[in-house]
């Protein structure tokens, strides 16, 4: 079945450094939709980015991601981390059905 893999459970970096959170997926569906959700402490997850277009960069709130179907990847990036970016980040996939499949999440901690 479909799956999403986030290899890093925990990422810690210093404010101002670039951020890259990995996300790869598996699906037999040729047109998957990929999402990034962010969950701050004591809050519910909310949508950060989404894409279904191959090789097109999607941006929101300083974050960006590009869906690469050739490598089944949808990595989340930001050029300069801020303290307020500390949160749990989830990559998710839907392959045309109602079900969203989430990765295991990456806890990003930004230090001053």
């Amino acid at each position, binding site marked *: 079945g479909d799956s999403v893999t986030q290899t890093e459970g925990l990422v810690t970096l210093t404010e101002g450094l670039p951020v890259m959170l990995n996300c790869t997926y598996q699906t037999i569906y040729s047109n998957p*939709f990929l*999402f990034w959700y962010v969950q701050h402490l004591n*809050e*519910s*997850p*909310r*949508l950060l980015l*989404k894409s*279904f277009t191959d090789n097109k960069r999607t941006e929101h709130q300083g974050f960006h991601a590009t869906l690469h179907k050739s490598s089944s990847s949808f990595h989340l990036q930001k050029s300069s981390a801020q303290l307020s970016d500390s949160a749990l980040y*989830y990559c998710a996939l*839907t*392959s*045309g*059905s*109602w*079900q*969203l*499949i*989430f*990765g*295991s*999440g990456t806890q990003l901690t930004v230090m001053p």
Partner: protein
Amino acid sequence: GALVYQYPRRTICKSGTSMRMECQAVGFQATSVAWYRQSPQKTFELIALSTVNSAIKYEQNFTQEKFPISHPNLSFSSMTVLNAYLEDRGLYLCGARTGGADAEQFFGPGTRLTVL
């Protein structure tokens, strides 16, 4: 805007008892509602996916007998945790979507269940 409310926000129940939680979508039609459990050490565990006018689909390790769900209309869903035990502790999140596969899933704030 689209909002999802969940009631109660926190609840405590004795081991072996049951509790019911509710999810309400405001500002959009919740054609599908997914119930998740987020445990302290785990990511989202999908419990079940409910789509209006379709059978509720439960994930492995979760059953209708343990987590009965009602999704009677496009704005409301409820789930009961029957015979709750310690392993049922966690944050129960409701995620509601409308429209097609690219539709955003809106999450409620969750119901935090503590089992004594």
